[in-house]
Each structure stands twice: as structure tokens, then as C-alpha cells.
């Protein structure tokens, strides 16, 4: 696919991703300039979704590395399959093979466990590499990844240096559990995905929950938007507002009114404090949500 701004926005539309100028430009640049894209934003605003959509757009596979505390090279890059090597050794034992012959087998690709980063490097064509929640990984791992992201090659002592044939398109996401290093930020393009505007949210609901009445979708989008501005502990994410919209269709709600909203509030608010705070205000929030 030719990378042009038009193609990117078309591709996003085809994949059913409602984006704004900011998201479109950032994705286009990441692909055109071949730079990693660091995405930040509140939980559930569609950060991970971007990587999936980019993969769909490029008609390629998505390789995902989920970060967590204590993630190390063995889990992220490669590891020798020791159990298999051991079996091979035992099988070879009685054939009187010399060590040179054995070792040649033992340290070949057959005995290598490829972890996501190595898979992305070995891929014969351009893939999308998603490094999810990079803020959860340790600082040492971040430093190791920086090196990898700059030239996409690894040295495996037994096999030599492997270089990526096609540089993968890299998407990193972060929830800010800790500050990422300046070096990582410098190397990436930065995209912040915020909660959508009312209009965008309405379009997202319409695409993902097509059976919901258009007018109700508009009301739902307004209501959720008002909730997010109410200073809650955990404002509802897009995923939650979609769940809620689905619940509304299942319950056969035709018009937003206090009783059904109260009954389904648990889908939007996951903190008891938030629920108590909002429950008394539901009526007022709904009357604001009716399109004027």
C-alpha cells in the first residue's frame, strides 16, 4: 500500500476506526517516516486498537508484546528450548556422535523459542509490532528495547547477527504507571488519544452498536460525556460506553430516562464512590443529554 495521508484516513475508515486529524496524521507519519509511535491516554480510549487497525490497514499480522514488571529478554526476545535440547541429547547419546556434530543441531533455529520481538525481526514481510503498556516494564528492559528499536537487529551468540528484512511498524502504548525515559520519548512520535468528543463518540456507538436507535446513541454519547466531566475517580471509557449502549438495546430502552439509567449505571461506573456521587444527579445529567 502506498502511504499517503488520504490512504491512511481511508484505511482507518474502512477498519471502522473513528479518528480525528491528530490520530490520522500521527499514524501516517509513523508509517511514512518509519518511526515508532508512542501512544498515551486514559485507559480504554482505543490505544491498543490503533495497532490492530494499522495491521488491518497494511494487510499484515500484528505481533504483540505485553509488558509487565519483571519482563526480561528471555520472555521478550528469545530463549533456547532446553527441554527439547535435552531430549535431542539423549536421543543422540548412543549413536556415538562427536560434540561438534551434536552442538551443530542443538543450537539451530529448531531449538530456538522465538518470543515476540524476535518474531517481528524474523518476519519475511513488514509486520506491526505492538509493545503494550511499556510503562509496566522495568527501566532496564526499556533501555534494552531502545537499542533494539534503533536498528532492529539481534546477536544470538550461537547463530550470529540477525537483521530485520523489513523494519516492523512499531506501536507502543503507555498508561503512565511511571514516567518513560526521555530517550524513549525522543525516539518516538507521540500521540495522545483523549476521550472522544460527543460527535465522535456518537459515530463510534453507531458503528459498533448499529442496532441502537440514532437518537438514543446521541443521548448516550452526551450522557457519557457529561459523566466524564463530573470529576469521577474512574471516568467511563469508550469500551464501557459501548457495553452500556449494548445493554440499552438489550433492555429495549427507547428513550433515556432515570430509572433505566440507574439500573445500568454499574456498566459505566466501576467505583462505589462514583456511583453514589452520580446516582442523585442522574436526572439532571439526562435532561442535559437531550439534544436541544
Amino acid at each position: 500500500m502506498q502511504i499517503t495521508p488520504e490512504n491512511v484516513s481511508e484505511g482507518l475508515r474502512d477498519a471502522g476506526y473513528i479518528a480525528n486529524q491528530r490520530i490520522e496524521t500521527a499514524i501516517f507519519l509513523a508509517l511514512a517516516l518509519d518511526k515508532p509511535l508512542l501512544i498515551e491516554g486514559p485507559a480504554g480510549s482505543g490505544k491498543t486498537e490503533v495497532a490492530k487497525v494499522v495491521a488491518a490497514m497494511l494487510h499484515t499480522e500484528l505481533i504483540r508484546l505485553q509488558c509487565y514488571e519483571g519482563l526480561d529478554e528471555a520472555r521478550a526476545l528469545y530463549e533456547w528450548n532446553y527441554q527439547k535440547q535435552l531430549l535431542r541429547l539423549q536421543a543422540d547419546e548412543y549413536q556415538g556422535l562427536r560434540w561438534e556434530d551434536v552442538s551443530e543441531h542443538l543450537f539451530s533455529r529448531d531449538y530456538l523459542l522465538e518470543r515476540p520481538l524476535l518474531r517481528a525481526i524474523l518476519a519475511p514481510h513488514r509486520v506491526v509490532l505492538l509493545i503494550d503498556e511499556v510503562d509496566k516494564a522495568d527501566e532496564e528492559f526499556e533501555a534494552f528495547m531502545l537499542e533494539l528499536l534503533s536498528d532492529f537487529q539481534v546477536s544470538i551468540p550461537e547463530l550470529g547477527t540477525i537483521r530485520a528484512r523489513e523494519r516492523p511498524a512499531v506501536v507502543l502504548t503507555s498508561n503512565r504507571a511511571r514516567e518513560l525515559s526521555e530517550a524513549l520519548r525522543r525516539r518516538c512520535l507521540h500521540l495522545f488519544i483523549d476521550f472522544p468528543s460527543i460527535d465522535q463518540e456518537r459515530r463510534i456507538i453507531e458503528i459498533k452498536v448499529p442496532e441502537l436507535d440514532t437518537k438514543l446513541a446521541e443521548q448516550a454519547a452526551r450522557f457519557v460525556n457529561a459523566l466524564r466531566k463530573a470529576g469521577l475517580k474512574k471516568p467511563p471509557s469508550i469500551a464501557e460506553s459501548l457495553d452500556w449502549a449494548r445493554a440499552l438495546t438489550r433492555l429495549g430502552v427507547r428513550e433515556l430516562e432515570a430509572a433505566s439509567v440507574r439500573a445500568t449505571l454499574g456498566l459505566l461506573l466501576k467505583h462505589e464512590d462514583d456511583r453514589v456521587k452520580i446516582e442523585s444527579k442522574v436526572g439532571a445529567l439526562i435532561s442535559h443529554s437531550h439534544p436541544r
Partner: protein
Amino acid sequence: MTTPMREQLLRFVDELRGEGVRISVAETLDAMRAVAAAGFERGPMREALAASLIKDEADRPLFDRAYAQFFGRAHAAEPRQSDSHSGARAARGGPPNSGAGVMPRPREEPEESIAKAARKAKIQKPGQSDQVRIKPAGEADRDFSDEAGEKNSERREAVGTEATRQARLAAIERAPFEHYSALDYEMAHDLLAILIRRFRVRLGRRLKITGRGRVDFRRTIRAATQRGGTLVDLRFRARRPRHIDVLILADVSGSVRYAATLMLELIAGVRESFHRVRSFVYIDHLAEAGFEDGHLVMTPTLDPYARSDFGRVLEELWERRSELLGPATLMIVLGDGRNNRRPARADLLGDIAHRCRAVYWLNPEPTERWGAGDSAINQYARHVAALIPSRTLHELEHALLEAV
């Protein structure tokens, strides 16, 4: 890209740097490439610059303002006064920062970090007409002097709900406690949850990397299988919380009470990283502190109008609470050391420091006021392991990390 365009971008980068945004040379080059790829149309060009130059969403409102002023001015059709000015400057090829300050810059500040802090502090002052701080994002557009409605919707898109919140939190983190309003104090609580999580991670990591302690046999063997059964790297059990008893004395008299309560809450949140935590507050007496529903509760209740007397507090601690002072005790004092000219009893602090593992003093007062007037801080300073400035939440967090 044409040379004038390139120069203009360089000037824009310089403008942002003047505002305290840190931009490297590599990022500047990225920005050039990004603009060349995205084109010079208003929307794409702005987003291309933002994606390559702004790596922290808290800086975004600033970027938007700078962009509107800079390129609004440069792209205008009729040569207004400011236009001819910038044109002349380009022709001369003079230093990009000379003259025509587009925005008030904290130029007089000596260091960049201070300039940044001051800039952020400025953002949070309530009286100012700063759309970032006070109003919800939607309303902010109205007083943003702009020509077209189309542009307004662009801005609404740019500064969303969460982005606004983040910008405010970032501002609060660097705002001196002495400038806090009640509203800021409330915002600071939101930030505290983030700080507590971060603090825990940092503390936890520090405990983990100490390569001593008991060997974890299972994990060592597992690691050895990767090395053909040779015990090359030893793995250790996760260390238990270090045997540290934290003892906190926080001044809750008017001038420093925000700092004190926030610190007590922060420590309460990371309580399980220590063996034991005892928190006290003081003004002229000592009182045990606790939290109920996020509110500070002290027993006995202190008279908020009393005059600080740390000397007496030290005496009380030494005489009645000496069981709290032992070789595992890490004492952290937070206060400005203003004793209303009563006896400082710094000698007593010396004795206490002798009995304890260490005494750290965190001072939320600006450094230049230390020791001036009735401040006895310099007398106390002699007896503590370190005297650390903690004017802002950011500094406070780092001071605590240094202490524990």
C-alpha cells in the same frame, strides 16, 4: 523544503524551547521530515509538529498557543506590524530569540528547570485568564481570540477532557505549596494516587535490586537449566520490607500544612513498604496522626492558632516517646523550623539523631528564606543527615525517596 520554511520552523522550535519545552536536535530534524511528509496545510502541519516535538501531553496547550500565535502571525496576508518585524528578523538572520517576545517568558530565571516550574506554576494561578487551568475544555475556546469557527472546533478536539486534567495535574506537581488554593489542594489529592503508585514501584525496585539475601533455590535451578545446568547466576528471594521504622513529625501550622498533610498521606499510602510507620503532627505539641476517609485526624487535637514550638515538641518526644527512637528508626521531619524565637533545643535533636538510624529534614520553604527571621533551621541542620528542600509535590517526592 525551502530554506525560509526551514528557518521558520527552527524559530518556532526556539520559541517552544524558550517556553521551557525540551526539544532535541534529533526531534527538530524529525519535525522537518514530518512537515515535509504531511504537507503545509494547517491541520496536518500542526499535528505533524506536535507529534514530533511534544512528547508530554501536559505541554500540548502551550504548543497550541505558541502555534496559533507564531504561524497565525507568519501566515497572515497583510503585513501587520508584527509581520514586518518577524520578516525583518528573518532577513537579518539575527538570533531567533531577539526582540518581539511573543509571550511573556520567564527569562530572568537562571535555569531551565526553574523556568519550567515557574511557567507551570503560572498556569495554575486562579486569577489569570488561562484557559487551561480554570475552565472546562469546551468553554476555553470562547475567549481564545480566533477568527474562524472551524478553527474553534479544531481546538476543542485538541484539548480534550483528559488532556486538560493531565495539564492541570502536571501544573500542580510543580506548583509551590505556598501558592496553593483550596481547589489546588483538592487537585493535589488526585495526583497523590499517581504519586503513591509511582513511589511504591520505585521503592519496590530498589529493594529488589539489592543482590543479597537468601537464595531462591527453585528460581536458581530454573535459571541454571538455561545454562546447561551450571549454577551461573544465583537468584534471590524477594526481600522483605526493610526493617525500617519510619517516624514522621510534620508541622501542621498554617504556613506549611498543605505540604504536611500531603506528605502524611503519601507515606500512609506506601506504609507496607516499611516495617512500621508512626506519624505525628505538631504545632506546639505532639499529636498522633491518622487518616479517616482521606481526612487528617489527630489525637489530641491541636490548637490551629497556637504558635509553633519545635523545641518543646522535641522535649516531649525525648521524654515521653523515647521508646519510638531506636537504631531502626528513620525520622523524617517536615517543617520550616520557625520557632517564634523560642528555645530551639537543637542539642536535643542531636541526641535523637544519635539514637536513630538517621534524621532527615524536609523544608517546604523557599531556600532563600531559610535562616531568615525566626527560622532556626540552620541550627537544626547541623544535626540531621540531610536537609532537603521540598517546595512542591515533585520535590517532596524526590526528597522522600532520598530519605528512605
